[in-house]
């Protein structure tokens, strides 16, 4: 490709356009709320109001806790659910792919339950565990588990048979073949599953907290709605989005650490 002869601008064109569109959006927001006052704060709060509310929520408890408390509560439930989904789901998926009769036995149940969306489990989770951490953790688990299982299974199924043969030729038993050949080769797929599981779990958690519970970010926005405080809802939504992105970034980091043999 020919090198562009014109001097490079400070911003590339896509970035300039992006900045423009975001700028217009922000400007419209400011104009509509603060300057012209077309929409009242009960419909759309001004950016300043949201920032003020954010600062306020950090220091002052609302709906039982300050913002940080809600974040911690959400993260705690989420990590329980995701932890068990990974710890149980990944080995389950590997086993699923490796032992055909096991898959044949369990698959009917797995497939039936998999098609029930995680939120449909919220009512029964409430029935079983009441309004406790376990309820939300269970919903997170149910949202995260299938992704772990399915991707681990696919990863193992897609391992080139010749590698399994090579392992056998060099004297590896089933366990060693799994440990040293099959699982490492399936790791990228397993990680894809974990990433999906993590974001599914995060989504499901928000849903569960909207319905049941006394803390958490989902509860925070639900309470914002109850109290007609749209700015609180905004703060909650932004916090949920930002945390979701941060979690995904962490996992991507970890992924690169754990798989040095992957070419960039």
């Amino acid at each position, binding site marked *: 490709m020919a090198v562009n002869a014109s001097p490079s601008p400070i911003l590339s064109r896509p970035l300039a356009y992006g900045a423009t569109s975001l700028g217009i959006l922000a400007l419209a927001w400011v104009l509509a709320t603060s300057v012209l006052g077309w929409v009242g704060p009960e419909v759309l709060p001004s950016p300043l109001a949201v920032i003020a509310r954010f600062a306020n929520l950090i220091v002052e408890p609302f709906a039982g806790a300050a913002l940080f408390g809600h974040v911690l509560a959400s993260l705690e439930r989420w990590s329980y659910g995701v932890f068990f989904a990974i710890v149980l789901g990944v080995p389950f998926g590997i086993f699923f792919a490796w032992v055909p009769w096991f898959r044949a036995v369990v698959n009917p149940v797995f497939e039936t339950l998999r098609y029930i969306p995680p939120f449909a489990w919220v009512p029964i989770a409430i029935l079983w565990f009441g309004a406790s951490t376990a309820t939300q953790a269970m919903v997170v688990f149910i949202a995260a588990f299938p992704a772990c299982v399915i991707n681990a299974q696919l990863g193992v199924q897609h391992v080139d048979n*010749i*590698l399994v043969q090579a392992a056998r*030729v*060099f*004297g*590896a038993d089933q366990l060693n073949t799994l440990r*040293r*050949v099959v699982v490492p080769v399936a790791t990228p797929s397993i990680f894809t599953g974990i990433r999906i599981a993590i974001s599914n779990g995060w989504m499901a958690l928000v849903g569960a907290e909207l319905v049941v519970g006394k803390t958490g970010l989902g509860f925070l926005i639900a309470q914002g709605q109850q109290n007609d405080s749209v700015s609180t809802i905004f703060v909650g939504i932004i916090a949920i989005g930002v945390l979701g992105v941060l979690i995904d970034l962490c996992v991507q980091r970890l992924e690169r650490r754990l798989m040095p*043999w992957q070419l960039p």
Partner: protein
Amino acid sequence: MLEPSATPKLELRNITKWYGPEGTGVLAVDDCSVSVQKGEFVCVVGPSGCGKSTLMTVGAGLEEATHGEILIDGKPAGKPGPRRSVVFQKFALFPSETVAQNIKFGLQMTNVPRDEQERRVQQQLEIMGLTQFRDSYPSQLSGGMQQRVAIARALAMQPEILLMDEPFGALDAQTRTILQEEVQRLSHQMHYTVLFITHSVEEAVYLSDRVIVMSRRPGRIKKEIQLPRDVAWKRGDIEQAAEHPEFIEARREIWALVREEIMAA
């Protein structure tokens, strides 16, 4: 010459292999017998899809033959194990392990003492010219280098029998020539017992003591050709060898047989 009556190191006796149910599935190999004496280098040549690779997987113990048996020193060979090492066409290196770890893999699986493992890995790295790639991952190496690692991995086991399944099939021409010469040199020095599958007639003539020509599918043994052993032209490089009258004659004869099969298909 070898004693023809001696018990073969490796014997594939009356091997028949059906994929799917017998009679209605695909007949890959039909009543093939191949024997390799100790220290002998035997090549199996045939048109592609003739079942020569099947013969290999069965010979390695990776698949069960429908009929027939595999014998080592006259006794049933059993499951795949350290007595038979395999070099695969597609290298089959473990992608998550470094070169050294790949070479060490079989040694660890068969409980070779730790310092002996190190010694053999070091030795193979030197022989195959891989010392500087010791800690590289397979994906960082060229195809030729990867196949060197695969050969090193197989040789580190100090196997009684080496099975090679079109090991140079996936390589470019130059790399292939270099590796052919290297294998020739190694087998001369170490007197390995080798069963080598290839579709290249030149490769077979250059490397082996005996060439077995297979028919098209279902694979049967068409003919066996004894080649001169311990002759000077085999010790040089392959280009020189290819000019020797004995080479030319053998190649012509084998090519004619293979061509017959390809044309008849």
